[in-house]
């Protein structure tokens, strides 16, 4: 798939990957063997009928292809961009064994974009069942909440989504940067849901503005889905972490993406435009933060990770992009202190690590090399070392059962300990992926539908 040159793209926030042209998409689709027993489909966490949508591209019936995608996935233009297809559907493609799998993700993206480019009336709106008379509340408008809302609407229920921020989309809006997922795409996908009758109420914090109890007892909702994400940033607890210039990745990315700090002072929210930036972590979030810092004008961006590149949880493609754009990888080192002057960061002290025996995650555990501390000069440090469950909602719902780590306990259908209350996405699993959150939202929607109809 064509991409903008690393040097050019690292200077702005426009999208990196340009997407296929129609000819390229058709040519790629033709590579599909249309296997009798399509192994890619079970590879997809939501079992999209991949063979069939690619078949429609081959036939030139793109609208039919979109319809196939939307049967299973309410946000194809998003998933086509951010799903780790290389470890899901594409790895299961027969051609993968021969070297190059069909680029399923890119074809999904192309079809998703095709749909978004159509005029609203011509876009593929899933058919909505006759009104059931039930009202459902969805807490959180990230992928889990949006997928759940879309499915509930399709099943004929009246749906209201409550979002605590001023804009819907969850991580898609505040976390994943514009250059990887343009906000206009997220907006048009959400527009589709509102076309289906979903109401979105922003500025509503469940647990504060309303409790779950109030939604059901006073506001007249018959069932509630909680998709509130794993939004609470983790810090490492090293000395100096509260110096000015130290950010959680969530804060840094929120300032830039949601609050548009890159347009400061036209937009009112500032962000430190670091000259030398150290990003701690090895996941997608760390890559996004590092590449964002570059685009804000940093001269040097270091990625500090305690294992090696092979163990990094980030997508290969993102690691590759980051390296190409000039992010410097400092592998096998772990921060032990952040130092500063007059309250502002001046450096990150790190300890060298070695890989020891495999740990619980199966990855080789890093161990400190004694006396190997060294300092990386920097004026900004971004911590991308994970997130936890936000306790705000649960505090206001004392009977909702949680795991020892504060995540909501839910069964395979998303049912929680409270009758009529379902949950899914990162708030149940811990930080995972967009498609897993969407899958969970959809499964819960079906379970909510059964719950409501049985109760009648």
């Amino acid at each position: 798939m064509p991409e903008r040159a690393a040097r050019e793209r690292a200077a702005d926030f426009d999208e990196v990957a340009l997407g296929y042209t129609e000819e390229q998409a058709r040519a790629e689709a033709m590579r599909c063997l249309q296997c009798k027993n399509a192994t890619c489909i079970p590879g997809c966490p939501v079992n999209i009928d991949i063979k069939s949508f690619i078949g429609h591209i081959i036939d030139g019936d793109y609208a039919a292809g979109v319809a196939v995608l939307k049967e299973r996935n309410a946000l194809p233009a998003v998933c086509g961009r951010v799903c780790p297809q290389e470890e899901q559907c594409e790895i299961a493609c027969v051609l993968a064994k021969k070297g190059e799998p069909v680029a399923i993700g890119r074809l999904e993206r192309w079809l998703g974009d095709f749909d978004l480019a159509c005029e609203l009336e011509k876009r593929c709106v899933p058919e909505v069942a006759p009104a059931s008379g039930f009202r459902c509340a969805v807490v959180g408008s990230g992928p889990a909440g949006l997928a759940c809302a879309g499915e509930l609407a399709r099943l004929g229920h009246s749906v209201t989504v409550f979002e605590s921020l001023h804009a819907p989309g969850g991580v898609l809006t505040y976390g994943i940067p514009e250059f990887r997922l343009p906000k206009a795409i997220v907006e048009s996908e959400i527009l589709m849901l509102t076309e289906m009758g979903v109401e979105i109420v922003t500025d509503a914090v469940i647990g504060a503005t309303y409790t779950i109890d109030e939604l059901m007892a006073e506001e007249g909702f018959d069932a509630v889905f909680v998709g509130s994400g794993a939004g609470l940033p983790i810090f490492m607890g090293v000395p100096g972490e509260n110096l000015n210039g130290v950010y959680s990745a969530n804060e840094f990315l929120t300032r830039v993406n949601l609050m548009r700090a890159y347009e400061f002072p036209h937009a009112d929210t500032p962000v430190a435009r670091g000259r030398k930036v150290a990003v701690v972590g090895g996941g997608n979030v760390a890559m996004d933060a590092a590449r964002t810092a570059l685009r804000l004008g940093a001269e040097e961006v270091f990625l500090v990770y305690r294992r090696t590149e092979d163990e990094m949880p980030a997508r290969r493609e993102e690691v590759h992009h980051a390296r190409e754009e000039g992010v410097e990888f400092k592998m096998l080192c772990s921060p032990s202190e952040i130092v500063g002057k007059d309250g502002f960061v001046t450096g990150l002290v790190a300890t060298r690590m070695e890989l020891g025996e495999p740990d619980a995650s199966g990855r080789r555990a890093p161990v400190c090399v004694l006396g190997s501390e060294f300092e990386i000069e920097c004026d900004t440090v971004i911590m991308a070392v994970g997130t936890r469950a936000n306790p705000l909602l649960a505090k206001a719902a004392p009977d909702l059962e949680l795991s020892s780590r504060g995540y909501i306990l839910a069964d395979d259908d998303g049912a929680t300990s409270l009758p009529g209350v379902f949950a899914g996405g990162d708030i149940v699993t811990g930080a995972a992926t967009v498609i897993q959150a969407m899958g969970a939202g959809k499964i819960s929607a079906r379970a909510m539908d059964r719950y409501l109809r049985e109760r009648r």
Partner: protein
Amino acid sequence: MFEVVHKRQLSDAVFEMGVAAPRIARKVAAGQFLMLRVDEDGERIPLTFSDWSAEEGWVRFIFMRVGKSTHKLSHLEVGDAVADVVGPLGVPTHTEDLGRVAVVGGGVGAAVAYPVARAMAEAGAEVTVILGARNAELLILADEFAALPLAELIVMTDDGSAGEKGLVTAPLKRLAESGSIDHAMAIGPAIMMKFCAETTRAFRVPTTVSLNPIMVDGTGMCGACRVSVAGETRFGCVDGPDFDGHAVDFEELMSRQRVYAEEEREADAEYSRGCACHL
């Protein structure tokens, strides 16, 4: 959008504003705050509730014009609207079973002290309020406080233009030293809260402070608001805003409040150039 339903100028740069927010008004408790975004380009800024009416569906807050966001806000009139109001956020102030309590409100902090003192008095506490300001012009809500059932209202100004001349810590020390208070609550600039906490420490009077760190979301999602309390990092927006004044690292708080000082000046200067009010 949230309609502005009330506006009153309290001093040259201090405004009281009310917005229609019926859902929020039903749930507010003293000490909680809201996040406000003036318009589509606006920052999310925290403002503590100064008053509210569940029956009439409005909430009020008081702000000083210090930067671009509050400058823009100060230009709105009744009938205009702000883009976003979110809340009520934060843990309400503890107001029950306090016995004899001194509530110190410094500068715009008086706005927060007002509902807190009112709630404490309603809960049966014997409340002494110490109001502090640089001068009489900057003193706010003195009449409102005077109308509350307080044990005493003490007004302090730096220049003696209203009440006694001196700092709020002087009467606070008197009360603490004479054993006339069981608890103190200080709300105002970080430096004032710091000195209040230092004053009461010697007399072992438990002291609560209401912190005002920089915030982004106000819901625990970003950590911009982190403060050190008893050597531990806490999030001001969800763990606070109230903390034990004797355990707060005020130096760190003040340093963190200044992080965008330069950017704030830049943004306000740029805005003020194009602004008709020439302030």
